């Protein structure tokens, strides 16, 4: 199986994602430049963190129109697993592949470890987790304040599309545990068909104990298991 790591001008966590997938987890991976029109037969697409197009206009606003996003959208529509990390999550929101929008942090740029709770294990990226698992992984963002109108938020809650929430070390959803003002402490969501997941924290930067935490490994291990189990909706684009 193969991962595609999309690279936009200004992406800077593409190498972290590549390293985690290829060197830590031993999977095949390749970089795909944003102007390519194909994702090269990949089984999983990662939109990495960074500052695509300098976050000009709005974060992710320009990247969503990159040529590669047609192929990513087609892959997502056919059920392929897509993970948007940080800036990648922002691109997915702007592209309409996930519901909601990002605002600037209510406070300031946050570069620190947070605790996120896994709310749903029925996505390709959380299948090896247990509901309620607490993952200690780093964030580094200035615009991670997740917003959606009240009716959309209610629909996401009702459909179980909130995948990760910021929690305290004890696993409680509190204001103090919320690093950026996101509504309902939302750290990550999925689409209605559950194959596209976006989250602001960086699981790919928490795959090795030497780097401070290996709690993020399970996110990538989950999708590897998902693809290897011959998930019926995986498609070649």
């Amino acid at each position, binding site marked *: 199986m193969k991962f595609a790591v999309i690279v936009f001008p200004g992406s800077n966590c593409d190498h972290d994602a590549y390293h985690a997938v290829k060197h830590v987890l031993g999977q095949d991976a390749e970089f795909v430049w944003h102007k390519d029109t194909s994702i090269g037969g990949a089984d999983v697409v990662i939109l990495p963190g960074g500052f695509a197009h300098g976050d000009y*206009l*709005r974060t992710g*606003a*320009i990247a969503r*129109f990159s040529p590669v996003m047609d192929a990513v959208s087609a892959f997502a529509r056919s059920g392929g697993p897509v993970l948007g990390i940080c800036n990648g999550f922002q691109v997915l*929101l*702007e592209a309409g592949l996930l519901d*909601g*929008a990002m*605002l*600037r*942090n*209510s*406070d300031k740029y946050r570069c620190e470890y947070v605790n996120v709770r896994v709310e749903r294990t029925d996505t390709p990226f959380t299948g090896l987790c247990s509901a309620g698992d607490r993952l200690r992984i780093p964030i580094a963002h200035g615009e991670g*304040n997740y*917003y*959606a*109108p009240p009716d959309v938020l209610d629909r996401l809650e009702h459909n179980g599309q909130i995948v990760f929430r910021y929690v305290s070390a004890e696993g409680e959803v509190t204001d103090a545990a919320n690093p950026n*003002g996101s509504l309902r402490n939302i750290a990550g969501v999925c689409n209605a068909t559950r194959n596209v997941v976006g989250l602001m924290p960086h699981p790919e930067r928490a795959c090795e104990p030497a780097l401070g935490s290996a709690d993020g490994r399970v996110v990538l291990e989950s999708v590897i298991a998902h693809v290897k189990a011959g998930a019926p909706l995986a498609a070649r684009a």
Partner: protein
Amino acid sequence: MPTFRARVFVTLKPSVFDPQGRTIVESLHSMGYGRVGDVRQGKYFELDVDADSTESARTTVDEVSHRLLANPVIESYRVEIENRDGDAPRI
């Protein structure tokens, strides 16, 4: 084909919290401008558009505003159009 100048004003929807606006207000208050009650920060764009008519120019600018300049989830926009030659009325 005439050229039109469009001005697009993009603002956050009232229901959306504006941390930049809040920061500016607090700064103004500490500068002594206690009478400034609220500030919302938005964006302003100027576009030159070649089109056969004001209506055609407006259609293009509406589309561009909706697709790129504003994020309809959190922002609203307003368009003003004038003929670059200065003849046509503002819309």
